[in-house]
């Protein structure tokens, strides 16, 4: 019976076998390829979001700007926020997590490779769905936090796209969060105890739990908004007794953990980069891990500091002011850990190190301006001014984006096998950090002078002119620095220096294996004996604590000569080692296509909605029923038939 069933499977549910070309990318379940897809896609969205910012800065460069209309400006700032948060910072972090997480814990893939591919396709299609609103009657224009009751009253379909698009993107993040939690808890190499895991892995675990619990809350708010806009419910209709504060509570109960969802991966990256280039272990590893977890816990108790101007009353305001001040403590702990790591180290000023140091310094500024928000009367002055915009860009750009670039420069050789050019990289860094401060520093001054955020023009003679012009010059400097980065990527793609397995003499086990890693990651799953295991395989410390190289053959360090590796193709390799890898699959993509289709269906045509659900159902059906592998990939060593 089982054999007959397997035969039917082969006929109707054959798995894709393409190893190169479009199909290979569209059906891949390899975490490394999915990571690269995530990275590429989010970078494209980064450029789009950046162009939106440049249009806005051009509009605001001089008083009474005439570049865009008010209606277009509203769409631009809304989509800029949504893009940078949901389509850039979050997926860029996911890109690094995807590529690195299994490598860092010594696994061959994530726990659910097909679910991982599904997450990516849902993210891509969700992003395209959100952007399709520009050509289908206007994009979301109610601000990224879409306050009620404006969100239900705005004409057009923009805010409906907002509610549906964010839900689709939420499904991608939720599936990713479940996948990463199970991977981290269940797929660790022997000896990789929780307290031996790299901090980046720890922060991924923390972020995944934050996503897991934060996403359903915004999900409910978005459903309610969708019902309000499409089916005439009155959740957010003050006329019928609906409470606009409910939206604010639900949104920020998600929104504040979301802030940590965006910053914690960057903190993890910096915690990897700084020790590698200071040639010292991370200072206070347990403290930094527990501080990360503490931030996540306390992150659930500070949301109402976004609502100090909403009139919650003195008791609530005081409580949230206190919790907001408290959450600065674990964050400060991390800062001191990073400084302690660099202190006394043999620092190498590589581009990755510079970006990590840039992260720490810019994040301190953003963190301090953040603490000023906890002072309620002060916050009442700052609410909805450029001061807030300045603060949030210091933590999300100066923080997250700088951290992500540190990660890109650090792991680029692991991704692609070639080093980025350091001279061009440093030019990129200095242009970006100068442009960044030139843009967002003046925002604080503008805010204190009383310039409101989200205004599309301002009158001359208010003292805003010079600061706005400076910010615009800064914004274009940032844009130029991104061009420098792209030039670097293109130039080194062909002619870059070969990286080898471990170009930075780094500490964690992803550097044990060749760059780029083979499809199966590790020939043999490493046994972990230390935190920073790879470092301990390379060096012993003498009694004074000075590292000395391990004598060849003196420890269990084993490196495979590069020529030996390059000659073997992945598939021969797998068969030789009897490694069973998950096969590519059509169904993650098929299932993902159904979701935006259902989204359009809700907006335009019930039949399309039904078709979307049908596709999801067919996708799920194929997902369950497809055979585990094509016969060619059968495990030769044991001769076991995988079906």
């Amino acid at each position, binding site marked *: *019976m089982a054999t007959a069933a397997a035969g039917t499977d082969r006929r109707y549910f054959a798995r894709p076998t393409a190893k190169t070309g479009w199909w290979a990318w569209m059906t891949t379940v390899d975490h490394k390829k999915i990571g690269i897809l995530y990275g590429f896609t989010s970078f494209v969205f980064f450029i789009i979001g950046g162009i939106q910012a440049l249009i806005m800065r051009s509009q605001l460069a001089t008083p009474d700007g005439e570049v865009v209309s008010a209606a277009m400006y509203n769409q631009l700032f809304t989509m800029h926020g949504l893009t940078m948060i949901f389509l850039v910072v979050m997926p860029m972090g996911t890109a690094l997590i995807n590529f690195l997480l299994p490598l860092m814990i010594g696994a061959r893939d994530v726990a659910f490779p097909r*679910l991982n591919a599904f997450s990516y396709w849902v993210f891509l299609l969700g992003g395209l769905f959100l952007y399709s609103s520009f050509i289908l009657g206007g994009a979301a224009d109610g601000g990224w936090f879409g306050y009620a009751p404006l969100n239900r009253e705005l004409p057009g379909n923009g805010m409906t796209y907002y509610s549906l698009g964010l839900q689709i993107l939420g499904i991608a993040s939720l599936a990713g969060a479940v996948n990463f*939690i199970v991977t981290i808890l269940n797929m660790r190499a022997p000896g990789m105890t929780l307290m031996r895991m790299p901090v980046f892995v720890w922060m991924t675990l923390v972020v995944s739990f934050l996503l*897991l*619990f934060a996403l359903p*809350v915004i999900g*409910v708010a978005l*459903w309610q908004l969708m019902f309000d806009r499409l089916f005439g419910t009155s*959740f957010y209709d003050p006329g019928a007794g609906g409470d606009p504060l*409910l939206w604010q509570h639900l949104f920020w109960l998600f929104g504040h953990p979301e802030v940590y969802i965006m910053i914690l991966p960057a903190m993890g990256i910096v915690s990897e980069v700084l020790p590698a280039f200071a040639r010292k272990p991370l200072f206070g590893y347990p403290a930094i891990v527990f501080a990360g977890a503490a931030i996540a816990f306390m992150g659930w108790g500070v949301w109402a500091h976004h609502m100090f101007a909403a009139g919650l009353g003195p008791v609530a305001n005081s409580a949230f002011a206190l919790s907001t001040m408290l959450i600065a403590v674990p964050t400060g702990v991390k800062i001191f850990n990073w400084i302690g790591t660099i202190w006394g180290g043999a620092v190498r000023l590589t581009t990755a190190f510079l970006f990590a140091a840039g992260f720490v310094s810019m994040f301190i500024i953003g963190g301090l301006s953040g603490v000023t928000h906890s002072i309620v009367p002060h916050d009442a002055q700052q609410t909805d001014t450029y001061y807030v915009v300045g603060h949030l860009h210091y933590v999300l750009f100066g923080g997250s984006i700088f951290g992500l670039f540190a990660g890109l420069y650090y792991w680029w050789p692991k991704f692609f096998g070639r080093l980025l050019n350091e001279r061009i990289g440093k030019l990129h860094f200095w242009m970006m950090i100068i442009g960044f401060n030139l843009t967002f520093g003046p925002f604080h001054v503008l805010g204190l002078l009383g310039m409101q955020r989200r205004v599309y023009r301002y009158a001359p003679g208010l003292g805003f002119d010079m600061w706005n012009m400076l910010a615009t010059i800064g914004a274009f400097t940032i844009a130029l620095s991104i061009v420098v980065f792209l030039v670097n990527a293109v130039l080194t793609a062909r002619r870059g220096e070969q990286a080898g397995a471990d170009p930075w003499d780094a500490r964690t086990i992803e550097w044990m294996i060749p760059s780029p890693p083979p499809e199966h990651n590790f020939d043999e799953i490493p046994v972990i004996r230390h935190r920073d295991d790879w470092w301990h395989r390379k060096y012993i410390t003498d009694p004074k604590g000075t590292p000395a190289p391990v004598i060849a053959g003196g420890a269990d360090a084993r490196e495979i000569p590069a020529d030996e590796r390059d000659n073997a193709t992945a598939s021969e390799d797998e068969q030789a080692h009897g490694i069973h890898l998950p096969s590519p699959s059509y169904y993650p993509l098929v299932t993902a296509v159904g979701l935006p289709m259902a989204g359009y269906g809700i907006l335009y045509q019930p039949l399309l909605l039904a078709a979307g659900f049908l596709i999801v159902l067919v996708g799920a059906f194929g997902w369950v029923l497809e055979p585990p592998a094509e016969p060619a990939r059968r495990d030769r060593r044991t001769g076991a038939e995988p079906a």
Partner: protein
Amino acid sequence: MSAAHAAHGAPEPHTSTGVDNVKMAMWTFLGSECLFFGSLISTYLLYHDTTGSGPTSADVYDIPFTSISSFVLLMSSLTMVLALSSIQQGNPRAMRIWLTATAFLGLTFVGGQIFEFTTFVEEGLTLQTSPFSSAFFVLTGFHGAHVTIGVLMLLGVVAMSSFGRLGPDSARPVEMVGLYWHFVDVVWIVIFTVVYLIP
């Protein structure tokens, strides 16, 4: 799910914690669902008395009827346990019977909900009547949708079992669907208490 495939013809894959991957994923997902229903229930509590000129909860709720359909749903957890126990004792036929019974009880509950909604609409409580009615229909509607998805999964397992497609460790998918099913039942206990029983 891929772990399920890896398990075909091979011993259970070793995991760091010893807990099966799919089971851990299901627990994690259900943790997320708690916050989903928590938010919906909070909304309902906020709007319970915001009925405008429409009917109030005391006007429309039929506690005896809902108690019976709640009882039906709770009994479905019992049949679910019996299904799992049957397959663990190596009796797929009994398992299929119990799973079908579970699906039937689930469908009965959904049918009761449709009847209840229809009655409410006839009594003047529609989705659009007031924030109270919106919150009520969306909360209970989402629960009904969860039950419906559960029924689809139950029938899927029955079908796969009939065609011999559950693989050597056939208790595993039954256990996973069971986890989901029990969770949906527990959520209903909370909803029934908070929405119907507390005035």
